[in-house]
C-alpha cells in the first residue's frame, strides 16, 4: 500500500455517532411543532399571522407596565388602568384562541394530507408519541401566550411598586397560583378541541373555520336558545357555550364580578359546572384523537 497518496471514496461515510432513537425523535418532532406554528423555516407569508398574534398578546402588558412607570414618576397617586392579572386573561384568552385556531390545523393536517405520516411510521416513534408530542408543542405555545405577559406585568409592577421590588414580589404572591390555575384551565379548554377538529377536517381553512364557528356561533346559539324559555330545558343549552366556560371559571378564580351576558350565569349554572364541561370535552377529544391516530399510523 503506497503511503504517498490515497484516494478517499467520497461516496458514502457510515455514521458511527450517537443515536438518540426514540428520545431524539420525540425531541425533533416537538421542536418541529413549535417551528411550524410560528412559520419558522417556512416562507415569510406563514410568519405574519402567528407573530402578529404574539405582538397582540404582549403589547398590552408592556403598555400597562410602561404606563405604570410613567404614572409612578409623574403622578404617583393616580390609579393605574391595569385591572389586575385576572382581567388580562380576557385579552390573552381571545388572542390565544385565534392562534390555536391556526396552529392546531397546521400541526396535524399537512402531515396527514401530504402523507408524511408514513415517514413518522418508519421512525422510532409510536403513534401515541407522535400525537402526544404534537399536543405538547401546542400546549407549550398556549402556556407561553398565557404566562409571558402575566410574568412581564408581575415583575414590572413589582419593580415599580413603592414598597420595594422583593417585598412586592412576596405581597401579591397569592396571585401566582391563581394565574397558573387559570392558565391551565384556558389551555385545557381550547387545545384538545382544536386537535379534535384538526383530526376530522381535511383542510386547514375548514378546520379553523369550524373551530371558530363552534366557539363563537355555538356560544351565540346557546345564548339565543337559553332565552327561548318557552322551550323546556332550554337552560341546558348553555353548556354548548364552549367559548365562555374558561372565562366563567376565570371570573370565579379571580373573584371578578360576573358580567350579565355570561350565558352560564343567566342559565343559573355554577362555575364548577363549566370546569366539568371543559374537562369532559378535553378528555373526549383526547380519546378520539389518540384512537384515530393509532389507526392512521
Amino acid at each position: 500500500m503506497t503511503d504517498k497518496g490515497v484516494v478517499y471514496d467520497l461516496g458514502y461515510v457510515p455514521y458511527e455517532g450517537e443515536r438518540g432513537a426514540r428520545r431524539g425523535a420525540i425531541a425533533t418532532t416537538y421542536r418541529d411543532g413549535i417551528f411550524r406554528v410560528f412559520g419558522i423555516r417556512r416562507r415569510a407569508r406563514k410568519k405574519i399571522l402567528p407573530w402578529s398574534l404574539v405582538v397582540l398578546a404582549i403589547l398590552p402588558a408592556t403598555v400597562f407596565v410602561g404606563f405604570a412607570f410613567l404614572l409612578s414618576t409623574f403622578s404617583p397617586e393616580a390609579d393605574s388602568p391595569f385591572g389586575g392579572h385576572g382581567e388580562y386573561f380576557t385579552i390573552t384568552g381571545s388572542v390565544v384562541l385565534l392562534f390555536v385556531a391556526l396552529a392546531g390545523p397546521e400541526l396535524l393536517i399537512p402531515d396527514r394530507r401530504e402523507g408524511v405520516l408514513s415517514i413518522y411510521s418508519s421512525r422510532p416513534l409510536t403513534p401515541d408519541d407522535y400525537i402526544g408530542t404534537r399536543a405538547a408543542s401546542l400546549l407549550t405555545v398556549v402556556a407561553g401566550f398565557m404566562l409571558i405577559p402575566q410574568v412581564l406585568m408581575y415583575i414590572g409592577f413589582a419593580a415599580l411598586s413603592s414598597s420595594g421590588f422583593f417585598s412586592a414580589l412576596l405581597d401579591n404572591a397569592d396571585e401566582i397560583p391563581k394565574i397558573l390555575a387559570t392558565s391551565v384551565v384556558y389551555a385545557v379548554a381550547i387545545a384538545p378541541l382544536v386537535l379534535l377538529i384538526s383530526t376530522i377536517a381535511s383542510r386547514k381553512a375548514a378546520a379553523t373555520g369550524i373551530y371558530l364557528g363552534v366557539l363563537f356561533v355555538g356560544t351565540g346559539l346557546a345564548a339565543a336558545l337559553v332565552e327561548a324559555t318557552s322551550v323546556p330545558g332550554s337552560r341546558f343549552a348553555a353548556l354548548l357555550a364552549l367559548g365562555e366556560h374558561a372565562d366563567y371559571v376565570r371570573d370565579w378564580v379571580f373573584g371578578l364580578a360576573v358580567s350579565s351576558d355570561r350565558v352560564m350565569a343567566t342559565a343559573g349554572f355554577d362555575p364548577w359546572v363549566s370546569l366539568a364541561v371543559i374537562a369532559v370535552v378535553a378528555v373526549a377529544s383526547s380519546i378520539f384523537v389518540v384512537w384515530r391516530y393509532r389507526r392512521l399510523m
Partner: protein
Amino acid sequence: MRAAWAITTTTIRQLLGVRRLILFGLAELAPAGVLLLMTQTLAEEAALDRLLAMVAALYFPLFVPIVTLIVAASALGDERRDGTLSFLVLRPIPRSVIALSKFGGAVIVAAGLNIFGALALTAAYGIETGSWNLVVPLVVGGAFASIVYASLFVPLGFFTDRAVLVGLVFVFIFENAVVSALNGLSSLSPWRIGMSAFTGLAPTEVAAELSEFGGASLSSFGTALFRTVLIAALSIAATTMVLRRRDLT
C-alpha cells in the same frame, strides 16, 4: 341526443354525492328554521313581513348564490382538475352539446336544491298563515336566480381553481355592496332578477312590501325571464367557444 343526456345525468351524479346532498339539504332548511325561530321570539310582527325579511335578506342574496356557486363552479372545474376533460371532449359530439349538457346538469342540481329551500320556506309560512299563494312565485324566483348564477359560475369554474373564492367576492362585493349603491347595475345582479320574478308572480301587495326591503329596484316578470334566458344563452355560447378555441390541458 343520448350523449347529451348521459353527460347531464353523469354531471348530476358528480355534483350531488350523498354527502353533498345531506349537507345542502340541511343548509336549505336553515332559512325555514330561522323563520320558525323568529316566530317564537318576534311573535308580534306580521307573518308576511317576517317571510319577506327572510326572502329579501337571506334566501336570495345569500343562500341561492352560495349553493349555486359551490355546485356550478365544480361542474367544469372538477373535470379540468381530475383530468377527465379529455374523456369528455375527445368525443364525436359538437362542443355546443357538451356545453349545454354540462350547464343543464349544473342548473338541475342548483335549482333543485334552491327550490327545495323555497318550498321549505313557503311551507313554514303556509302552515302558520294558511296562505299558500307564495309557493310558486318563490320557487320560480329561486329557479331563475339559480339559472343566472349558474350561467356565471359554470364558465368561471373552468377558468380558475379558486372559482368559489372569486364567486364569493362577486356576490358579497359586487352584488350586495356595489349594486345596492349604484342601482343602475341592478339588472346585472342575478338575485335581483330572481326577486323580480318572485315579485312579478306574487300578489301586488307583496311587491309594495318588498320595495321597503333594501330598495332593490325590481323589474317586471317578463324582463326577468328575458334576462335569464339571454344570460343563460350567452353563458352556453361562451363555454362552447372556450371548448373550441382554448387549450384543454
